[in-house]
């Protein structure tokens, strides 16, 4: 167990578990948190899991943990770890089952005050157009050939079929397509699961949310993103569905034997890994990229359907009802990136699990309009609370492998949340607070109650205090569709 006495305070917002804490640690753990957030985190196994993660072969720098951290399986949620190429490892469990789970933000010029009476209708129509729920299947059933195309092309597949615009792709991490995806490395079962689920939200904590831009903190950055106070925006949170879950499951299974072959000893079997330059590591990387591209296409189809919902509700009544993409960002991903580590530029595989890429101004891969301001970082809050739009900074490049937080982060188990909160009462309370809610199940709604999460404002103030992100705008929810 890690206790607060084991931590070295670096600053008000940064703490370290030194490498000497446990013999098998290869690098220290750096935690972005206030003392108050740390004390909350001590109630679960997040830090123990971060220490376990610090034993992965080939790590460089620190294992980092964001202020929205919470206990996961193997690797903590909110964790970031970079392994050096070519011999460092890649670990599927350090990326997660929902490969390229992420958030997309679209902005409109619709004045909330003019349409607030329509939020119930909008939630109903969004719910209708965007299939959700357990095992939900979409309107499209991909043929085997089409699935392979989605694997290779990601959002570009959607563009070719009229589900996307060039600007959507321009405003997506990696333009919505990772190079090096190889469907040949994806199992028949994953393919079978992927074929019917494209364009679906799923269940759990996935959602579509309409927000109003409540406050702008950085007018220049907000203008570059098309965000204006009082206007409606839309967030989509989901990932690669059963396709990604199966790919991760397959490789966690396969790597159980790989660690023995490569003589890798780990404190938790969920952290199994393989060297990046091994056939096993290369196969997972190629399959993971298929799932990442599937997830980009999935959010693209949901965005297309959300646009249809906006058209149905607002066309002819509002002048500029269109939704323009601000950004789409992954928070469960393994990426090959170049970073400066101890003064040395090196190619690393950055594992982000429940952590968002947060590249600073001037970083490669950002579109021209975001070069000056830095990459948009999307931080959805818990249901009924604020969400934030931030941007990456130079400090994030230097101190967190260009990463920041991804949300509020749970503090309460789903079981406890269901015991404390009644879904129908929560829905009534949210509706009374002016938030229209459509949910697949009242139990599922209760599990996602705001009480089950940390205060997103406190999480954001921590990354701002640590200077790994900068505030752009705060969003307030007005309609939610829950999977």
């Amino acid at each position, binding site marked *: 167990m890690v206790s607060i006495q084991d931590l070295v305070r670096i600053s008000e917002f940064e703490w370290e578990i030194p490498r000497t804490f446990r013999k098998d640690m290869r690098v220290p753990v750096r935690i972005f948190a206030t003392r108050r957030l740390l004390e909350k985190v001590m109630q679960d196994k997040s830090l123990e899991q971060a220490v376990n993660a610090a034993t992965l072969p080939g790590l460089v720098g620190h294992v980092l943990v964001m202020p929205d951290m919470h206990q996961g399986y193997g690797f903590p949620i909110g964790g970031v770890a970079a392994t050096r190429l070519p011999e460092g490892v890649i670990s599927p469990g350090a990326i997660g089952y929902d490969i390229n789970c992420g958030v997309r933000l679209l902005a409109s010029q619709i004045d909330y005050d003019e349409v607030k009476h329509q939020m119930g209708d909008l939630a109903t129509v969004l719910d209708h157009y965007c299939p959700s729920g357990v095992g939900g299947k979409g309107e499209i059933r991909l043929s085997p050939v089409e699935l392979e195309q989605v694997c290779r092309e990601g959002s570009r597949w959607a563009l070719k079929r009229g589900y996307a615009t060039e600007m959507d792709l321009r405003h997506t991490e990696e333009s919505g397509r990772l190079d090096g995806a190889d469907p040949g490395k994806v199992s028949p079962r994953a393919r079978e699961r992927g074929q019917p689920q494209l364009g679906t939200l799923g269940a759990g904590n996935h959602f579509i949310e309409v927000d109003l831009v409540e406050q702008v903190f950085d007018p220049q950055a907000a203008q570059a993103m098309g965000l204006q106070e009082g206007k409606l925006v839309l967030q989509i949170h989901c990932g690669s569905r059963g396709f990604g879950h199966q790919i991760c499951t397959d490789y966690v299974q396969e790597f159980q034997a790989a660690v023995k072959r490569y003589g890798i000893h780990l404190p938790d079997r969920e952290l199994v890994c393989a060297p990046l330059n091994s056939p096993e590591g290369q196969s997972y990387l190629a399959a993971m990229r298929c799932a990442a591209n599937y997830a980009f296409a999935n959010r693209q189809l949901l965005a297309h359907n959300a646009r249809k919902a906006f058209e149905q509700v607002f066309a002819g009544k509002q002048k500029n009802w269109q939704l323009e993409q601000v950004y789409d960002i992954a928070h469960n991903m393994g990426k090959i990136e170049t970073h400066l580590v101890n003064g040395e530029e090196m190619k690393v595989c950055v594992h982000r699990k429940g952590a968002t890429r947060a590249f600073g101004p001037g970083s490669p891969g950002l579109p021209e309009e975001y070069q000056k301001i830095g990459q948009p970082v999307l931080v959805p809050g818990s249901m009924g609370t604020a969400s934030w739009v931030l941007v990456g900074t130079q400090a994030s490049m230097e101190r967190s492998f260009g990463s920041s937080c991804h949300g509020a982060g749970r503090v309460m188990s789903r*079981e406890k949340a269901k015991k404390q909160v009644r879904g129908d009462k929560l829905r009534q309370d949210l509706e009374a607070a002016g938030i229209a809610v459509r949910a697949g199940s009242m139990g599922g709604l209760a599990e996602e109650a705001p009480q089950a999460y940390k205060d997103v404002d406190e999480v954001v103030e921590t990354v701002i205090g640590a200077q790994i992100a900068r505030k752009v705008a705060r969003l307030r929810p007005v309609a939610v569709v829950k999977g």
Partner: protein
Amino acid sequence: MESSRLIIHTMIVPAYGYREIEHTADWELEVWAPDLIGLLEQAARGMYALSGLCLERLQSQQRVLKLNAEDAESLLVVFLGEILHFIELDNLAFDEFQIELDGYKLHARLTGSQVQNIDKEIKAVTYHNLLVRQTGHGLHVNIVFDV
């Protein structure tokens, strides 16, 4: 239409059972049984209960499952993964488990029916801290599910 919610069996047969353990984000299940066959069955029943799964009892269906694993933990993960897959693929869940084991080689005849309702989606069965332990009362294991 008759339906039946799969419920906790611990009070009926104390040697076998499962219970949910507090976990911040995902689901953790503690499962116990006198032997590995019982552990597999209880784990499946516990997983169904966590999902809030209800069966339609219109027409029973059978499936045969053959698996081979390196150890007890891998067998649990693979077996539960197969059980989850039947839900997604065929909308099918089981309430009768006839399991035979030869080491970690499994042959099972599963009888069940169509799923009428399921509240929650389990993304995956994880290996997180997974260890089948021999205790004075039989086998125990804690399983974490990604949800």
